């Protein structure tokens, strides 16, 4: 399921597969919007 770089072909999009290792507690996961720390990318408000 994981495609190494040398097997990637042109004109195709790739998203790396997530490999599960650990999870947050249920309540922390709910409040963050994911139980997977490696998928947590919070928004930093930009001042414009």
């Amino acid at each position, binding site marked *: 399921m994981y495609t190494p770089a040398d097997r990637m072909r042109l004109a195709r999009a790739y998203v790396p597969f*997530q490999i*599960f290792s650990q999870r947050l507690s249920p309540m922390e996961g*709910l409040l963050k919007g994911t139980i*997977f720390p490696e998928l947590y990318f919070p928004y930093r408000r930009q001042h414009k």
Partner: protein
Amino acid sequence: MDRERLALLKELMALEFTALEFNLYLDTHPTDQRALMEFNAILPQLKAVKQKYQERYGPLTAEEPSSYPWQWINEPWPWEICYE
């Protein structure tokens, strides 16, 4: 909504959310045994909290036996609850 009920509702949300996260992960990783074990381990906790909530505060789905009169329609509905 009183503190105790709100706390139990949030606990239920957290467990159900954890189950959903594993559900989506397993959809694309059906052979990840560790994730599968964690998913299976969450379910009894989720069921227990669900049962406790329903015993105290009424049905979460219309597939529950009801005392008289029909409990399913009781307010508050989810959008009417103050989640503070």
